[in-house]
Structures are given as C-alpha cells and as structure tokens.
C-alpha cells in the first residue's frame, strides 16, 4: 500500500498573473510528482497541491523565491488517512 507519510497539501491562491504562472510552472516539473487536487484556474482561485515529502523543500523554495504565499491545508496526509482507516474499521465492527 502506498503511504503518504510526510506528504502535505499546500494551498496557493494566485493574486497576479506572475503568481499564476509560477504555480503553473510547477505542473511541468514532473520529477516532483505533484498531485494537483485543484488545478490552477485563475486569479483568486485556490490551487491545492499534494506534495510528496521529498519534494516539499523544492516546492516551497520555488514558491517563496517567487514571493508566492501559500498555506498548509493538510499537514500530514497519512495522519488523515490513518484516521479515516480507523473510522472505517470502527464502523464495520459496529
């Protein structure tokens, strides 16, 4: 089973064309193995990116270097998955 330990979901809300372009550039960086939960859509609209742990530093550096602010929507994806799994087990036992 693929684990998502240390993966984070970052939220970026581009406020200018430059910021939008910086986020779009990430889509082309295939080696980072980013998963765009919400793809870039336009100015003021959130972009949610699941970032594998090994790519976190590179992605954050890319955004920070360009002055693009972001927030961490999900701190550790695996932690949420564990909760989900536990709830399912509890529910099936019930």
């Amino acid at each position, binding site marked *: 089973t693929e684990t*998502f330990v240390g993966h984070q979901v970052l939220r970026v809300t581009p406020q200018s064309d430059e910021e939008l372009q910086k986020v779009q550039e990430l889509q082309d960086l*295939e080696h980072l193995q980013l998963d765009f*939960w*919400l793809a870039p859509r336009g100015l003021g609209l*959130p972009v*949610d990116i699941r970032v594998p742990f090994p790519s976190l530093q590179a992605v954050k550096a890319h955004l920070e270097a360009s002055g693009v602010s972001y927030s961490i*929507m999900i701190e550790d994806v695996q932690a949420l998955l564990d909760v*989900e799994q536990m*709830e399912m087990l509890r529910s099936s036992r019930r």
Partner: protein
Amino acid sequence: LSLNTDTFNYEAYHTIDEIYSFMDMLVAENPNLVSKLEIGRSTENRPLYVLKFSTGGTNRPAIWIDTGIHSREWVTQASGVWFAKKIVQDHANNEGVASILETMDIFLEIVTNPDGFVFTHTKNRMWRKTRSKNSGSICVGVDPNRNWDAGFGDAGASGNPCTETYHGPYPNSEPEVKSIVDFVKSHGNIKAFVSIHSYSQLLLYPYGYTETPAPDEQELHELSAKAVAALTSLYGTKYKYGSIITTIYRASGSTVDWTYNQGIKYSFTFELRDTGRYGFLLPAKQIVPTAEETWLALKVIMEHARDHPY
C-alpha cells in the same frame, strides 16, 4: 455487515463489497421499485451496476445520476448510497421524488469506476483514474472524465498517460465510459444526466471544451441558481455555478458535454464538499450532511426535467 438497508451505516465510508451488498439488499427489500442492471464490465472485469428505480411503464423518460467516476472522491459514492435509500424512502412515504417516479425512471450508478475504487481501498487512496494499461507507458489509467467523445483530445486534457487528466488513446476507450455511452444511446429517452464529483462546491453545465455557450445556457443557468439556492438553504454551504469552461477551466472530453451533445438538455456535473480543508479526505461525519444538501439540488433539477418535457 448490516442485515438490511435500515441498519446500514450511512455515516461511514464503505468498501465496494459492502456497497454492492447494500445494493442487493435494497433490491431485495423493494422488488417492485428497484432493480439492478449490469451495464458492462470494467477493465479488471468488475460488474458495472446501475440501480433502476421505476414504478412501471416501458422506456419512460429517465434521469441518470452517477457517482464515483473519479475513484478517490469517496464522498460521492457514499452520497450515492444515501440517495438510493432516500429514493426508496420518498416512494414509501409518498413524498419528495415520489411524484417524479410516477412518470419518470431514475438510474443511479453508485460506483462508476470500480477498479479505481478498489485501488483506493487497497493500494493508493489518492487514485483518480481507471486502471487500464497504456501501451508503451509504465503509467496506468485514463481519466474517465476526459474520455468522452466531446472535443476529445483537445486542449483541456493531457496526452501523457502519466498525468491525472490523460484522455486515453481514443474516445470511449474505457469500458466504464463505453458502457454508459451504450446504455444512454440504447435507452434513448434520458432527459436529465447528473455526474457527481468532489470537491470545490460547484454546479456546472456544458460546455467545458468550447467557449461557445450551450444553446440552452440561459435555462441551465437559471435552473442552476434554483438548485444551488435549495442546496444552500439546508446548511448554508456556498456553491458557485456556471458553465464548466467559465467557472473552472477548459476541460475536453468530459461526461456532460457528451450527454448534452446527445440531446440531454439537463446535463449537469456537481463538485461536492468541501472547499479545501480536507479535500478528498472529507471526514465521514460529513457524508450525510453532504448528501442531504446535494439531494435538495438534485430534486430541483429532477422536478424541472419532469415539468419541462422536451
């Protein structure tokens, strides 16, 4: 496992076996209303089941609802289960959609992408696509919402099998898509088609592959406004609505663009909760509220389809 659909836990996520077992129970409990059709088989040979809700008649005008075409969007399959039970309850109590069932049938495909759904439970919770092999690539799967014959392969889908929006080698290459295409064509009397996704709280209508407005745009827009108002009335959940291309982005080969081009005027796609706190990992306690509010919007669309025959 629950023994009947009254004791089934609607506030939890379930495996495919549990959902298929739920469907069998629902059919067994309501033989005069619900039947289960197998419209095809998936890439990995899983049955593609559709629940038919009908009070009789032959080839009545019908409403189609599908959930779970993107397998990781678990709140959609879970909502589909809730919808199925709700239709039965409304019929029994002669309320809600009971009046719709007097003249129309409802078809509900709860697990539209079963291979992907099983994969999300066993190997990769974040899997979105089908599980078909791609010749010449190590990457697996096609985005079943880019695989329809409506602007297929144009901008708004990817030709790279390793991306999440890979459109596939040709239109309807995915059996999960082809089975619905064949069903819709052979039925010939589907009047409303609603495909349900998550997340981002949107109600969308065609088109996604072109900026040309749909000929019925004004009516679809007004109907969307009513549906969204009904949805929001329950818990205050905020939705946006509009055409796919103007509200989110260009998307080619999508489901409802194809259905609309087939003459199904009331073609819509939903994006359910949330707006980004949990994404695809929506807590199970939000399943029922999500389904309840969505149902109000669905009912508006279904009633409009009933009251505006074409």
